[in-house]
């Protein structure tokens, strides 16, 4: 089933959607939030480096980690939230094997901070303030590993290594209207958290997790529609798709006179559909009770707010897209494309700071069209920033041709850590076999499709000119050792095959 964006947009005129996000951001801290168990220890084995409290050994008690409180306050201030000078911890109960104590310590009565906003671009390139409902501190659960029957015939394995890691739960008001504005919000939030250093923002390994509440209401009606909650969406791309699908599904159900059930949904990435989860229902009774083992969290007394305000004076917390566009005179579109990859903004800003002589357009295009095309999400960016800068400088000074520079970049992404000059030297002096030269010529022709079709349809004069261009490209990539006659023969043969 595919969702037509057009249909969805038209339908949402009659059924305006309301989307709210609930973000769980793991706090970057040395220790867990209520124990001295280490966070992110180097020991990769499951259930390693646990403290007794992390696995709820009877009689052990929570002790608040001040670093986690500080991270929460920093985050709340960066989101312009109002810090509650006195907040409380509560226990939220549910039986699930990943929860060692049978309850999660969270903040239910009075959270760490309320209100605030984050400025985000919507689809029409307007900057809107997405209002924040609250920021609260809580503990993470362990992980359940459903797998093959590996260890002693058990097929459900429990890893409590993550249990007790500090979380910031950031809840937005239901003011977002579609998947892409939600995606923009998460992109901005991620960068903000990374800048202030309270969360590493890694969605792939679960440091940043997003749930979305979706409802639609009929135009003219006062109340909100019934809400469903999409849980555990992995990655920003899927967040957008999942929300858009869910909005579409609500509208489908309601416009046919049906009823939306208040369910918890799971998003199937392959089929691009949401399905109700079994297990925890969204109307579960959590039987909240005060966490008497922790006194009220008194923020003013710690002088923390002033300390955090000082830290934030040094860190920009404006909308990243807007500030990039203003600072470098680039389009909002370019800035948004830069924002869409984890590493791209840092790289862009570093290049611009170190090499102000480079034209901004050139830097953007080498990042967003060349590097984006070469790097897949899983491995991330591994190119040395210094080498990347020298490459752009050489290219900008016409010491490298486009194809040469691209070839060097491709080698750099594959792990070649030599300087571009060294790589170029190698390319130029390398001895190429006949098949090598065929490969190179084929690449040139596939990279210049327009020229090739022009060649095919062009007159003799045009052909001669274009052939000269292909020859030049091939010569610059193969170096002077190669026999131009050999190259000429190969190119002619390849081009003739295409006619």
């Amino acid at each position, binding site marked *: 089933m595919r969702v037509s964006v057009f249909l969805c947009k038209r339908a949402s005129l009659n059924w305006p959607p309301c989307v709210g996000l609930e973000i769980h951001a793991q706090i970057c801290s040395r220790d867990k939030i209520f124990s001295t168990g280490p966070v992110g220890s180097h020991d990769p084995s499951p259930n390693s480096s646990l403290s007794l409290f992390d696995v709820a050994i009877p*009689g052990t008690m929570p002790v608040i980690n001040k670093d986690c409180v500080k991270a929460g306050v920093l985050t709340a201030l960066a989101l312009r939230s109002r810090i509650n000078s006195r907040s409380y911890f509560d226990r939220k*109960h549910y039986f699930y094997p990943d929860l*060692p104590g049978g*309850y999660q310590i969270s903040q239910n009565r009075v959270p760490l901070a309320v209100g605030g906003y984050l400025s985000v671009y919507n689809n029409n390139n307007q900057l809107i303030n997405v209002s924040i409902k609250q920021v609260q501190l809580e503990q993470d659960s362990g992980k359940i590993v459903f797998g093959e029957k590996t260890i002693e015939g058990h097929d*459900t394995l429990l890893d409590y290594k993550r249990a007790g890691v500090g979380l910031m739960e950031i809840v937005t008001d239901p003011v977002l209207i579609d998947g892409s504005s939600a995606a923009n919000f998460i992109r901005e939030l991620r960068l903000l958290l990374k800048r202030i250093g309270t969360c590493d923002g890694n969605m792939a390994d679960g440091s940043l997790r997003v749930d979305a509440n979706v409802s639609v209401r009929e135009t003219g009606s006062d109340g909100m529609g019934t809400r469903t909650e999409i849980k555990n969406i992995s990655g920003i791309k899927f967040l957008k798709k999942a929300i858009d699908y869910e909005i579409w599904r609500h509208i489908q159900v309601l416009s046919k006179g049906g009823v939306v059930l208040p369910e918890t949904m799971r998003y199937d990435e392959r089929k691009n559909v949401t399905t109700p989860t079994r297990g925890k229902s969204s109307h579960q009774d959590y039987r909240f009770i*005060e966490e008497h*083992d922790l006194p009220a969290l008194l923020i003013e007394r710690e002088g923390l707010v002033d300390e955090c305000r000082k830290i934030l004076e040094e860190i920009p917390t404006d909308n990243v897209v807007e500030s990039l566009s203003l600072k470098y005179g680039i389009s909002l579109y370019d800035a948004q494309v830069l924002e869409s990859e984890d590493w791209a903004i840092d790289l862009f800003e570093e290049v611009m700071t170190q090499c102000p002589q480079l034209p901004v357009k050139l830097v953007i295009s080498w990042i967003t069209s060349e590097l984006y095309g070469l790097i897949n999400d899983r491995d991330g960016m591994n190119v040395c920033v210094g080498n990347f800068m020298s490459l752009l400088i050489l290219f900008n000074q016409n010491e490298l041709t486009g194809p040469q520079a691209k070839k060097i970049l491709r080698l750099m992404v594959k792990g070649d850590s030599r300087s571009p000059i060294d790589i170029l030297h190698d390319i130029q002096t390398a001895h190429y076999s006949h098949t090598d030269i065929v490969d190179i010529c084929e690449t040139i022709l596939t990279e210049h499709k327009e020229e090739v079709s022009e060649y095919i349809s062009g007159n003799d004069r045009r052909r001669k000119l274009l052939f000269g261009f292909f020859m030049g490209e091939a010569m610059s990539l193969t170096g002077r050792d190669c026999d131009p006659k050999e190259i000429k023969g190969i190119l002619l043969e390849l081009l003739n095959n295409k006619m």
Partner: protein
Amino acid sequence: MAAKGANSLLQSFQSKISSMKNLSHLNAFITETIKIAESQVMEAQKRNEDGAPLGPLDGHTFAVKDNLCTANTLTTCASRFLSSFTPPYTATAVQRLLSSGAAMIGKTNMDEFAMGSSNLSSYYGAVEHPNSASPSSSSSAHNLVSGGSSGGSAVAVATGMCDFALGSDTGGSVRLPASFCGTVGLKPTYGRVSRHGLIPLANSLDTVGIFAPTVSTAANVLDAVSGWDRCDSTSVRREYCSVNDEFAGNEEMTTVRVGIPKECDIKELSPENRTVWRLVADELESLGMIVKDVSLPHFSYSVPCYTVICSAEASSNMAKYTGAIFGYDCSKAHSPSTVDEMFAYNRQFGLGPVVKHRIIAGTYFLSYHGRHHYEQALKARSLIKNDYQTVFDKDGPDPVDILITPVSLGPPPTRSTMEELGPVEAYVLNTFLVPVNLAGLPAISVPITRGEGELPLSVQVISKWFDEGLMIKIAKLIETFMRNKN
């Protein structure tokens, strides 16, 4: 504690151990740790011979209620669920006693997870009342309950098996068995003694309490275990000075204002218990203290309020007993096919009926449909606490420094009486005790005399928050003049 000669430490140890052996039918202990204790006493004796004892508790023996964690020693909470649980750490209170040179001789029997007032709900069987020890005691004494939930610790101290003992007091679990067995039972202010390592029943009410033959021993123990602990965030960070003090003279006594809460004079109070309560009040007045009636208007809400709050918190604290990580494992006897089933079996077969009753009640009180009871109870609790704040308020219209009340309604009931009572009715035994926990105040149960059937009678002294110093001075005074009288 009087200084003892070098040899007498070991001699005293040997005599305690022989009482322990001779009175094993009382079922006071779940686990004995005599061997380790003996070597500790021997070390203490060496220190004593060198003239460098660690302090007043060096070389003295103590017993620990089996809900306080002890590294390398079973800690069962008298439950099947924890019947093979050996904690990897030691509770702060126990550790502090060990550091003062005291030797732990064993872990004492109790009501399962400290839920009960008569010590009948232990997986290891009931604790017998100390009067059962004496061959001359009447046959009916064999059926008396020791009181609970810290019955084992109370009996161990009352029968001389150890010099003192630790218990836990959530709604009277130290003071009630202390009064039934005739020992001193001290409940400190909430926050005075670290709860780290105390397996919780109701964590806003739980305190680590002390049993001792005399008030001054109890005070020495309190000195040793008190104070801030980084592992318990509710433990109080304040300068601690010894509470083991006495009145300097009569002049100081005449400034003390003693309150007699009139709401405690209920019709269910036995004549004997009413008599000793009045007797103590009269004695204090004759020493020059100002004794007056005070009112605690919300006193009668205490038991229902406690019932709701204690069950609600217990249901939360008991949520971790699923057997996923530690404790009872049903998989040998039954074969659960899902995780939910495993949790259910472990709880079904690992926990006793009283515990299940409390979990179910507490779960209801916290759930959507029963929550109004819990919220009502929270309101009642603040009214009850406020009553005490009013009578203790030094700027108030008619303040007092100390309150004297009965401890129990009457003598220890028989086993069959208790078994006939439902789990909720049994709370009535703690009428005079639970409001103190709800308010977080310190209190001490002081034995006064023996009444009918040679059964002990006690009164309760309650002081302001963290005013254990005055509470102990008064308790010592009462102890002294009653000793002179008897």
